[in-house]
């Protein structure tokens, strides 16, 4: 699924307190591309991700995903768009503490499929948690929790995966393992991935690296042959 942004602005606040988080962003991302968005805090990375995920609206400009103009979507259509097209992975995992790993994934699987439990088990096995699926989040390590979060994002088989600092809370080894997982799965399922991080080393695993500063794209680099995430160092 292609992603296309044209002249996108996002402004928070009004009047003299207004802050432009994104300024006139133009971007075209083909289907299956793994894009890493780099930038310091406050550069607009997460805002960009949120706009593509339709959990926030642009102030100006046009965002089209798979030919759909997100600005034209009503509240219910935004929900449907997210449900059918987008998988989110958050920095803080955001798992439901009262549900087991399998149930956290199943909860989302049920939104789009009738065989949610089977699909959840399948995806959890894919992320290496077949033997941990009946554990509750508090019984899992940080890396395991993030893998559950990835499984939750993938279970709907969304064409777009949006990852916001997915390794921000993890140690180096675990972080690298998570990135490898994301890389493998996105290649396998031909998903378009937007991954936000402040860690520039992660850019080496991406097909494309966007650098943002103060809401503007200051660099747009394509990698012809990105390295395997497992080989990253930082």
């Amino acid at each position, binding site marked *: 699924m292609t992603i296309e942004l044209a002249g996108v602005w996002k402004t928070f606040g009004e009047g003299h307190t207004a802050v432009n988080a994104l300024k006139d962003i133009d971007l075209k991302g083909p289907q299956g591309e793994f894009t890493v968005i780099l930038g310091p805090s406050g550069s607009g990375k*997460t*805002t960009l991700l*949120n706009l593509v*995920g339709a*959990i*926030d609206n642009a102030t100006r400009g046009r965002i089209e995903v798979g030919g759909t103009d997100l600005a034209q979507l009503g509240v*219910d259509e935004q*929900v*449907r*768009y*997210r*449900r*059918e097209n*987008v*998988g*989110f992975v*958050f*920095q*803080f995992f*955001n798992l*439901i*503490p*009262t*549900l*087991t790993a399998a*149930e956290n994934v*199943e*909860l*989302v699987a*049920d*939104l*789009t499929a009738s065989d*949610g439990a089977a699909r959840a088990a399948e995806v959890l096995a894919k992320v290496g948690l077949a033997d941990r699926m009946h554990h*509750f*989040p*508090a*019984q899992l390590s940080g890396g395991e929790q993030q893998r559950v979060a990835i499984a*939750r*994002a993938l279970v*709907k088989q969304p064409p777009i995966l949006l990852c*916001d600092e997915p390794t921000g809370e993890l140690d180096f080894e675990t972080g690298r393992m998570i990135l490898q997982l994301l890389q493998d799965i996105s290649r396998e399922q031909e998903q378009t991935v937007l991954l936000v991080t402040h860690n520039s080393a992660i850019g080496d695993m991406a097909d494309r690296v966007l650098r943002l500063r103060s809401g503007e794209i200051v660099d747009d680099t394509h990698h012809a042959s990105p390295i395997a995430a497992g080989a990253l160092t930082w």
Partner: protein
Amino acid sequence: MVSPLQRKLWRDIGRHKPQFIAITITIFLGVGIFGAAWDSYTNLIASYDQTAIDYRFANLTVAGGDTQAIADLAAAEPRVESVEMRTMVDVPFRIEDTKLLGRALGIPSSEQPSVNRLDVSAGEYPTNGDPSTLLVEDHMADHFGLGPGDSFDILVGDAWQQVTVGGVALSPEYIWPARDRQDIITTPDNFGVAFVPEELAEQITGSGPNEVVIYYFGGEADEATTLSLTTAARELGAINIYTRAEQPSNNALTEDVKGLEEMAVFFPMMFLAAAGMAAYVMISRLVHAQRPHIGTFLANGFTRGQVLRHYLGYGLIPGLLGAIPGAIVGVLLARLITRLYTSILSIPLTIVDFYWTTLLGAIAFGVVASVLAAFAPALVASRVLPAEAMRGETPSGGGRRSLLERLIPPLRRVPTAWRMTLRGVGRNPRRTIYTIIGVVLSLMLVLVSWGMIDTVRNLMDRQFVEIQREDATVFFTGPTATDDVAALVAIDGVAAAEPALTLPVTVSANGEHYETALMVLPDDTELHRFADVDNGWIDLPQRGVVLGQATRDLFDIEVGDSVTMTLADGLSVAAPVAAFVDEPLGTMAYVGRTQAEALAGTSLPATSALIAYDEGASAATLRNTITELTQVAAFEDANVLYDLMQRFMILFYAFVGVMLVFGGAMAFALIFNAMSVNIAERTREVATLLAVGTERRSISRYITAENMLVAAMGIPLGLVIGTLAASAALGSFNSDLFTFTLYIQPTTYLFASLAILAVALISQVPGLRAIRRISIPKVVKERSA
């Protein structure tokens, strides 16, 4: 100068305004009710006490026996200040077309009596020596529109004698116009009091004084004097002896005021407990959410004491904001209630004092409840380890399968979202428990209030429909032959008439005495039923006396034990107790006519007749027809009495209605806070679910279901505890005058439960609206959502 920490405190409160307002209002209500009820109670008791002193209300009244000897004996007692002999006689009055049971009380013709003085509100105290000029009691004057110069008739001997109203008077003995302890509720059409020159009273009785009224120094009770005089008076043949506390009017009023005292404790306790729990839930959540801030404070050099004090502030502020105005409004309201009460009951003296202790006590109660609620979370805050706290939010619970899933395995297969709902119930056990306690408290308040309505309605139906089955009671001018009673059936519209003989009697057993009325009824009476406390409905036994159940505890006796009944003429009869009956009003003694006549050795007359109407008969016509009969002194329509009681109940219903509204407000405050916190605590979960495409209404449904499940869990417990509380609250009103047996209609349980669920549902609305305002991008990115 306001410190940054204080600014934080106020801003935090501002951010959680609705929750803190809910706590403040609950404290306000609790403290307000305390102030209003306690000061009203204190003022009314003070008013009664002062009235008793100013009007020299008798400490002891002795009827019957050797009056002169009793008076002499009393006068010799060192603690006795005044003794008065007088004549008291029940005699028919005729005011225009209405005949009623009158009571003539002898008063000195030269000056006010030294005991039981009168407050002459219109006209003058009769000192002209004319025995036919008298004072009428305020209630009777008011009902019949009597004033100075008016006249009515009193039956003296066989002839009606016209008397002139010299004035209208209030008496401490008839503030509540009760005929006697067994007949607390009368209609003004049926009973009235006149204070007549002693000469006229003696003319009516045809003998000398028959009562001694005794006033102790300063009007103060003295148990030793009372015991000594009572014992001596009984030996001198006294038949009816009662202290000021037992005096019918005073007793009825004291029982009534006792309700305010109960209210001053029971209701505020519930409100303050509810406010405390709401504050606890709210402040615990704040502390949990602010762990990183607390860590930062501590890391930057704040002392644990400072942190403790800071979080105690979250309890102190709503405590002060609720308690100060609550106490002021309560105390002011008490003045209004006192004046309203004394004016409705025509209490001669109204004392409205300002009691600093109530004001300060009320504020202290409110503040202490709120600060205590804040203490546990504040202590937790002060004990936080800075390094740990700054690492972020600790996981809120490990998560586990719900009890329901473990008990009912098929529930494990319900959709995941509903499993989340089930598990949410046990996620924060303490909060769940507090919400359940909130529901229990709310149901208690509702059931205690509503239970009172149901019980009193049931009590009235039981007394006036099931037990007293007569449509009217006809009182005769004197002892009347039973044949005359039978003749009443000949009157068109009268279906049945039964003779009744009512005699004042002292029942004694195990050294205790109880003055009551003995009612002799036909063995097969159809118009009065007997509800045996152990065996349900029974017939009047062939042998033995049937007693009201209050005597069982008073005498410590059981069925089969013997009691002695002493009649006014001094005649004593021993009889076994055949049964104890459950009668809501009064504590009477009953025997069958055959047995009574066998004991007397002669046939007995009737003093009244119980009559039943033909279906469709006009009560008004019957009243006119029957009261025209010369032997008839008064006609009491049971329906009028029933309606009168219903009218009295309106104030009671209004009070209970207010309590129900307050209960609803309390339930709302408590449940609202618990629900708000529940929703606030899972903001990130909600945002995550929204981000993955779950509809807001689905999330609202899950959360609503979870909260309603918690509320529903509290209902069975609330119904049980509410019923026990209602029973205890009503039990405190039980006396020989009233027996309150709790009765709550099944529909009351149903409606009370539905009302609480409705409140729980409504109280979620603000929280669920907040879900709509959740900023997904902000929340999913924040460490502490």
